[in-house]
């Protein structure tokens, strides 16, 4: 079985091109409501086709709905908490414990080396962005803390990467804020990994 990939139908492909043309002049939210809704639906199809990359080499990982009977009839219409059978054709798609997909082809998402991982150092990035400038507090005028809460809440619905359970295999990172701040410590930070 080949990798699972979504192929838009002929009509969907035509609609994608059509709305692409329309959107050059008018964005979806300025179209009449019904048309705008169609525009959104087609944008979704396009994103699914061009912006989602499966992380399983074969689609077999998702199972085959025609071979797997529903364990309980209620899962035909009701939510199974682990996400199984949300897709009746591919029962394990999106289930808890399945691999998370990507938005880029996998050959472009190689695992970074430790050196790459720490460059730039997260502490440096944080200090540069978060340190109060002499001008004082700069308010964010376009959103408030509720936006942060809402986004975090939605992400908690969506993904949490499995982490190494053992603390000693996590990254122990010494707080060397002072050195990082004066710029002397961009690379090769103290990483203790046991």
């Amino acid at each position, binding site marked *: 079985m080949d990798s699972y990939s979504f192929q838009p139908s002929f009509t969907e492909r035509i609609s994608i091109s059509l709305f692409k043309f329309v959107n050059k002049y008018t964005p979806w939210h300025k179209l009449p409501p019904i048309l705008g809704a169609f525009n959104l639906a087609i944008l979704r199809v396009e994103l699914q086709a061009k912006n989602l990359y499966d992380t399983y080499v074969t689609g077999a990982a998702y199972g085959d709905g025609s071979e797997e009977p529903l364990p309980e009839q209620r899962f035909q219409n009701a939510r199974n908490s682990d996400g199984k059978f949300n897709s009746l054709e591919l029962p394990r798609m999106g289930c808890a414990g399945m691999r998370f*997909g990507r938005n880029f082809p996998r050959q472009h998402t190689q*695992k970074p080396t430790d050196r790459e991982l720490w460059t730039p150092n997260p502490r440096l990035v944080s200090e540069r962005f978060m340190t109060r400038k002499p001008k004082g507090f700069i308010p964010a005028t376009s959103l408030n803390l509720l936006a942060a*809460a809402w986004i975090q809440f939605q992400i908690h619905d969506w993904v949490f990467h499995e982490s190494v359970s053992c603390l000693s295999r996590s990254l122990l990172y010494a707080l060397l804020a002072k050195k990082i701040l004066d710029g002397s410590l961009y690379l090769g930070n103290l990483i203790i990994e046991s």
Partner: protein
Amino acid sequence: MTLPRSKPDEVLDSPDIKCPAYKNTNTSWWDGSQIYGSSEAATQILRTTQPDGKLLLTERGREAFIPRDSDGNPVTGFKDNWWIGMEMLHTMFALEHNAICDKLREKYPSWTG
């Protein structure tokens, strides 16, 4: 400071060596798993044993709170990185769930939870 490290999934095929994939312990569906949990067992714990199917809330007079375990951590579908913003949204959604349960119970008394 300790940063948890994502655990690469076992190598199933050659691309997994250079470009590891990572398992998602949540359901990837936007299905309310942060409220209801990502397993049937978790959902069972969160929903009261009453037949009305309501979510467990600690009620004090007119106030209702997300319940706490013996360590004081919230008992909900997904509780990591908790702060007041999460407390607010989880409480609001649990209250909304329970309010909908009441409406359904009123209209369809024969339904099970």
